[in-house]
């Protein structure tokens, strides 16, 4: 039962205050990502008088409704992805520019640091009415196909479901991007309506049994394409007692460490499942990745910059953010040990 305690905020930090929050995650509860966030909730529930009621699989908010839903307090907390909100979160879309990084840990730590230090980036979320507790690591995308995909040349003429900036990149490689909603992908590949799909991480694709219809999963070297975020209603956050906010923040570093470990474990398990089911993991040969990167050049990056400017971000802010992002990626990559699960899987399989 959920009499909403902290909804609306403005509470002013009385001693012994208790909080009863509703959290929406459109993914199933048994994914590593959901487990990581649930573990974080356990840690804050222990320290404060907080109870989080968890809702999964769009039972409270739909995937595309999470940002406005949390902003308006229809849920107090939510897991959302940046890809669904190109208009609202223009700077965050930088993650969709291919060939930036495939290091999920470095990206999340970089984004968490930028949220603290880059005003324009933070404002992007706060103006929408949410506060980001932490960004959430997601695996890089792969290209899944029914027929084997040896390399870049194999993309020529293929119909591939794709989303966002990534669709521009595969178009430059000669593929035809197709717009399909996620629930339609399975049947569309099964029936041969499309040849394959991208804009999907390895672990999620296998968890959704998509390997049943597209048993060839290939890392094209484009890297990360999306960004997850654990958000809380801004007015609720602002109204929390200082000490509550503080211990919620203190757990974040541990959360990221856990989340990366969980992701790596999940990707390893995914590899087992995938290989047992007869799947073929692959990576593009290095020369192909270079050729792909050359084909794409700066075009997608420029498209992102133009979109951000037309969404109302000042040009110098866009450039400043890009510089900060790239610098932070480099800084955090040094301490990261993350390897994309599909790349590891291909190595294990002896490719």
């Amino acid at each position, binding site marked *: 039962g959920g009499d909403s305690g902290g909804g609306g905020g403005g509470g002013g930090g009385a001693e012994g205050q208790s909080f009863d929050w509703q959290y929406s995650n459109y993914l199933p509860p048994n994914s590593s990502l959901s487990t990581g966030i649930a573990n974080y909730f356990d840690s804050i529930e222990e320290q404060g008088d907080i109870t989080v009621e968890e809702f999964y699989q769009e039972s409270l908010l739909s995937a595309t409704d999470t940002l406005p839903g949390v902003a308006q307090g229809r849920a107090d907390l939510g897991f959302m992805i940046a890809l669904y909100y190109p208009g609202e979160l223009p700077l965050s879309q930088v993650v969709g520019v291919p060939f930036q990084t495939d290091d999920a840990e470095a990206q999340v730590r970089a984004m968490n640091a930028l949220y603290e230090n880059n005003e324009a980036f933070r404002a992007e979320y706060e103006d929408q009415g949410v506060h980001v507790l932490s960004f959430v690591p997601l695996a890089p995308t792969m290209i899944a196909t029914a027929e084997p995909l040896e390399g870049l040349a194999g993309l020529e003429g293929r119909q591939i479901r*794709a989303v966002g900036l990534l669709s521009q990149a595969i178009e430059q490689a000669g593929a035809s991007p197709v717009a399909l909603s996620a629930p339609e992908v399975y049947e569309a590949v099964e029936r041969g309506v499309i040849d394959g799909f991208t804009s999907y991480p390895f672990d999620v694709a296998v968890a959704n049994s998509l390997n049943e219809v597209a048993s060839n999963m290939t890392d094209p070297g484009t890297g990360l394409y999306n960004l997850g975020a654990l958000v809380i209603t801004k007015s609720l956050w602002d109204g929390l007692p200082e000490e509550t906010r503080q211990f919620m923040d203190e757990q974040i570093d541990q959360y990221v460490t856990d989340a990366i470990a969980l992701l790596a474990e999940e990707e390893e398990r995914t590899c087992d499942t995938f290989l047992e089911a007869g799947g073929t993991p692959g990576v593009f040969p290095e020369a192909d990745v270079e050729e792909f990167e050359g084909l794409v050049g700066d075009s997608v990056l420029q498209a992102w910059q133009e979109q951000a400017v037309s969404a109302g971000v000042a040009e110098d802010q866009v450039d400043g953010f890009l510089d900060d992002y790239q610098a932070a990626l480099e800084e955090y990559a040094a301490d990261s040990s993350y390897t994309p699960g599909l790349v590891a899987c291909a190595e294990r399989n002896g490719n």
Partner: protein
Amino acid sequence: MGASGDNDPLSPDALIGDTHSVPPIAGTPADRPGGPVRRAIHALATAFGVLAALLIVGIMLSTALDVLVRQLTGSSIPGVVEYSEVLLAGLVFLGLAYAQRTGAHIGVDLVTERLPVRTAHVVRAIGLVVVLAVLLWTTYETTVVAIRSFEVGEFRFGLVPVPIWPVRMVIPLGLVALVLELALTTYDEITGARTGAATTRHEHPEADSSVVPGENGPRS
């Protein structure tokens, strides 16, 4: 008897408000005050209904064309899926008032049918007033969302960025037309409670498919 269009909700006759086409109503057309208002409200509902129908046909044609192009050239027409999705939200709200006018929105007559005529009118009027209040509230809230959507230039993700704000604006417009139709029905129920006139009812439009308006038409 007109040759054709007797059952045609889009015919000029229907717009003027003969007994075939008016919603549950008390008294004869002559008793009804505010004829022009009634006509204007029905005209709005019909105009929006026509737009909704055109959008359905448009989605059908563009989707079929997309399949054809894909079979011929191997690639889809960018934007068909995205635009269909966004237009769908618009067309269903455009059609709401027209659906109300043609009796599509089904209610439960079980109780009111068994009440004395005047009491039934009062009970129906009370129900309608409560629903109207919530619909007016919804109209206000969707307007607020629409204005904000326009200000930020909201668009949908996908292969092609599709602006959402026009559809966000259509939602409150469709709701306004629905509220007007329901207000008219409420007015009629209140009038009916005063005069004690019986209520005429519509058939659900899905029951109309088999009605052949031209039964005694030109070819016979």
